[in-house]
Structures are given as structure tokens and as C-alpha cells.
């Protein structure tokens, strides 16, 4: 167990000292928040809810994507620069190394979430949730971040170079757009509805919004749970297999 803590500490330290990671995971989400609210927000009709209140959960989801996609790069750096050989020759488990990167990703995203929420509050985000709503929303967000981070780790194991690893994660960054994260799905063309309604980001975002605004959430939280746990159930063994293949 000690090796998990040591390696998580290592990954967090490496993240903190990587200016690229700090900018991408902290500054970028805040800027995006401002872009959506002030550049696009005026033209988007979201009913009685103010746009900033509508879009804040969407930006949280988007920045989870940015933070988690960086896991692909950090894992790939470890796999290509020789340090993984040293860890293996020291009998350190690959799972511990990967878990360390995921833990750093979760830490990074928690900081980003706090920053985005802070700015959102400052520019008029007014959620109505009670404590239980907040806790449930945080739990779902945490699970979503963890899932994306493991997907990122898998991409990092699959890619031949850190640059390529970054490219693999484009899907994660793109998925929030064809969902209800930024604009209501009804405003999209009909042929997109099927996809938008049945992809993992939509139930996550609907749960967050519903829970934070204290609106009915329907079965969204359960769907979000099923999507995340399902993806994790696939990704974890895939990561183990990819790691074995990569280090054979």
C-alpha cells in the first residue's frame, strides 16, 4: 500500500511542476467558462435559467476532459523514457504506477473544479442544491473524472509517444459538445438527438445540473453510474493487458 501512496505523491509533484499541466487544467477551464458565458451565452436560449447557471456544470465536465486527457501524456512519458523499467526492476507493480497517475489526475481536476466553481459564483452562478445534492453531484463528478483518467491511462499505454497519446484523447474533449453540456439537445438537428441522448456525457451532465439546481433528475444519476462503472469495468482490465503487452 505504501508504494501506491509514494507513487501518487510523485505524480502530484510532477503535475505541479509541469507548467503545461497547470495551465491546461486550471487556466483553460476558467477561460472557457468566460468564453461560453460572455461570447456565446448572449445568443443561447436556455429558458428561465440564466446561461451561466446552465453552462457551469458543462464547463466542469469539459475541464474534467482536459485534466484527464493529460493522464495519457504522463503515462506515455513513463512508458517511453525508461523509468518504467527501473520501477519494474524494483518489483514495483505497474498498477501502482498507473494508479499514481490517475490519483494525480483526480487531484488536478479537483483543483480545476474548485477554480471553475469559484469563477462561476463570481459571475452569477446560483445553484439551489442542498447538502445532499452537492454531495451526490460531487460523487458523480468524481466518478466521471476517475473513469476518464483511466481511459486516458489506457490511451497512454496504447500510444507509441507522448504526443500521439495526447492525440488519442481528442474523443474525450469532443464528447461534451454533442451533449446537453452547452446547449439544449432539442436545438440540435434531429439526427444528432439519438447520439446526444445516448452517450455517457449527457446523463452525467443532466445529473449534475439537476442535482445542483435542485430540479428533477429522472434516472440520469443511475444512467451516469452505469456508464461510468461499465466503462471502468472494461478499461481496468484493458489497462492491465496493455501494460503487460507493452512491457513484455
Amino acid at each position, binding site marked *: 500500500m505504501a508504494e501506491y501512496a509514494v*507513487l501518487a505523491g510523485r505524480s502530484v*509533484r*510532477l503535475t505541479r*511542476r509541469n507548467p503545461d499541466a497547470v495551465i491546461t487544467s486550471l487556466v483553460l477551464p476558467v477561460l472557457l467558462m468566460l468564453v461560453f458565458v460572455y461570447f456565446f451565452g448572449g445568443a443561447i436560449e436556455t429558458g428561465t435559467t440564466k446561461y451561466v447557471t446552465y453552462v457551469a456544470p458543462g464547463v466542469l465536465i469539459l475541464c474534467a476532459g482536459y485534466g484527464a486527457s493529460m493522464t495519457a501524456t504522463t503515462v506515455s512519458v513513463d512508458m517511453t523514457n525508461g523509468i518504467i523499467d*527501473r520501477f519494474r*526492476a*524494483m518489483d514495483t507493480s505497474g498498477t501502482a504506477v498507473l494508479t499514481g497517475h490517475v490519483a494525480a489526475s483526480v487531484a488536478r481536476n479537483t483543483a480545476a473544479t474548485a477554480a471553475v466553481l469559484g469563477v462561476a459564483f463570481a459571475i452569477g452562478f446560483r445553484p439551489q442544491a442542498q447538502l445532499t445534492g452537492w454531495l451526490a453531484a460531487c460523487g458523480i463528478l468524481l466518478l466521471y473524472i476517475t473513469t476518464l483518467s483511466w481511459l486516458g491511462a489506457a490511451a497512454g499505454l496504447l500510444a507509441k509517444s507522448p504526443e500521439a497519446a495526447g492525440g488519442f484523447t481528442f474523443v474525450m474533449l469532443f464528447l461534451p459538445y454533442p451533449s446537453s453540456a452547452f446547449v439544449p439537445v432539442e436545438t440540435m438537428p434531429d439526427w444528432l438527438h439519438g447520439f446526444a441522448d445516448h452517450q455517457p456525457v449527457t446523463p452525467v451532465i443532466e445529473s449534475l445540473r439537476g442535482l445542483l439546481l435542485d430540479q428533477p433528475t429522472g434516472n440520469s444519476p443511475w444512467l451516469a453510474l452505469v456508464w461510468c462503472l461499465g466503462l471502468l469495468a472494461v478499461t481496468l482490465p484493458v489497462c492491465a493487458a496493455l501494460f503487460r503487452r507493452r512491457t*513484455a
Partner: protein
Amino acid sequence: MYPAAQAGWAIETQGLSKAYGSVTVLSGVDLRVASGSVFALLGPNGAGKTTTVRILATLTLPDAGRATVAGRDVRRERSQVRRAISLTGQYAALDEAQTGAENLRMMARLRGHSRASARSRAAELLDRFSLTEAADRRVGTYSGGMRRRLDIAAGLVTDPQVMFLDEPTTGLDPRSRRTMWEAVGTLARAGVTVFLTTQYLEEADQLADRVAVLDGGRVIAEGTPQELKKTVAAQRLDLTMAGPDAYEAAAARLAGRLLHRTPEGLVLGVATDGSAAHVRALLDEVDPQRTDVARFAVHSPTLDDVFLELTHG
């Protein structure tokens, strides 16, 4: 043919073979390394040196053959082997964004040291490798030589019995290379078995008790540096002649016995047993008037000569 080993063999391999797809990297490598000795695996690029080290360090499985390190089977007793070894690869395996001290403390913690004991172990190793001043600087700011030293230090956090060094001095300047050699010497005196690979014959000559020459995936020669040098029989007398005429005359006299000729430098090489009597006789024969030979030098064969003879002979 092998020296008697008091504590047995630190490394033993039999028929080690490995292929990547259709490319055969190792085809039947047999090695024995005595405990506490320094062993050099010498060979050109692509000879299979790194693959051998990776198999012995349990990072890669052999296709055939068996290998034991510190008495444990690399295939069946991976964990036990890993606890007895340390590996320093060709590329410094360190975190550039962590300081030297942080890297060492992390390695010590991963090997089960407590926080306090990791701290003191790191300080001790930094001191031993003259890195104390740079301890709190990020590794990204280190020179190539400092990185290598830190890399070796990282391998020593838990007192390994067997240490693998894969081309420890490739890319280092001559001074850093010296420092590295001293570090290997220190390890050897402390009783650690050192298995190193190198492309530099001088390095094997300087450091190793025994040398194996690997070429095309098989061991083509094995012995002490002295023994290997003996395989390239004679010594060589190089004569620098006083002028072109003298050069031509001497070349004609020695005709069939010349080992090499360099007209631009007016140098002729001829075989000798190295004794004063033989060198004197040769000089008299080539230059009875004692006017034609400007300088002479007697060369002992270098491992380079051995290497060239073995790999291209």
C-alpha cells in the same frame, strides 16, 4: 577454464535465445559471472547486449534457455531476482522534474524504507556520489555525468547483490567517464557483482575481471582481458623512417613480413615478440648504417585489436 568462485556464480545462463519476430537477437548465450566480480559484455551496436541485460533483470522473457541471477531463476522467481538486483539502463531513468534528493527518497520508499530512513539513505548516497550540492536541484538541470551518477545512486538505495549497468558511459565526456569508472571500482570493492555492457574496449580492459565478446547474438570469446589480448598473438614494432628513400629501402628488405605500411607517415609495422634482443636485431637488419630509422615504438595489442580480429577476422 573459469576461476574458482568462493560464493558460487552470481549469474549463470545456458542457451539463452531471443528473437523479435523474424529478427534473432540472441542465439544460445552461455555466461557465468563469479560473485563479487566485475564482468563486461562487450560488443558492437545490435550485438544483443541490452537484450541480455533485460532478460537477466527480468524485464524481458527469453524464448529459450535458462538464467539464474543471485541463485534465482529469472523466469520463475522474478520477485526474488528483482529484490537482489538493480538496473541502470542506457537512458537515465529519473524524473527530470524532481530534485536529485526527491528521486532517491522515492526509490528508497518504493523499496520499503520508512520516511526517515529514506531521507538518510538518500543523503548518504548523494554524498557518496558527490551530488550533495546539487541535491535540491531538479534533475532536468543536471549535466550528463551528474545524471549518470544519480542513476547509479538510485540503483544502490537497497544494497543490491548484483548490479546491471547498460552502457554506463555512453555519451559521457572523458572526465565523467573517469568518475563513472571510479564509481564502478567502489562498487566492486564493496563486494557487489557488477555486470556491465560497453562498446568501449578500453572500458572493459580498465574495469572488468572477465570479458565476454558478444557478436551477432552469440558469445564469440570469453576470458580475462589479458587472455583475450593473447589471442592476437604477437606484439608489433612500428618504425618511422627518416625519409622516402629510407622508407622504400626498408619496405623492400622486410617485404613479406610487414604487418602494415603507412607511406604518408613513413611508418612500417613488423611483428616482434617484444624482447629487447629481437627489437635490436630487427633495427640492425632494417638499418645497418643506423641512419634510416628516425623513431620506433613497440605496441602491445589492445582489446580493439582483439575485437576487430574476432568480429571481422
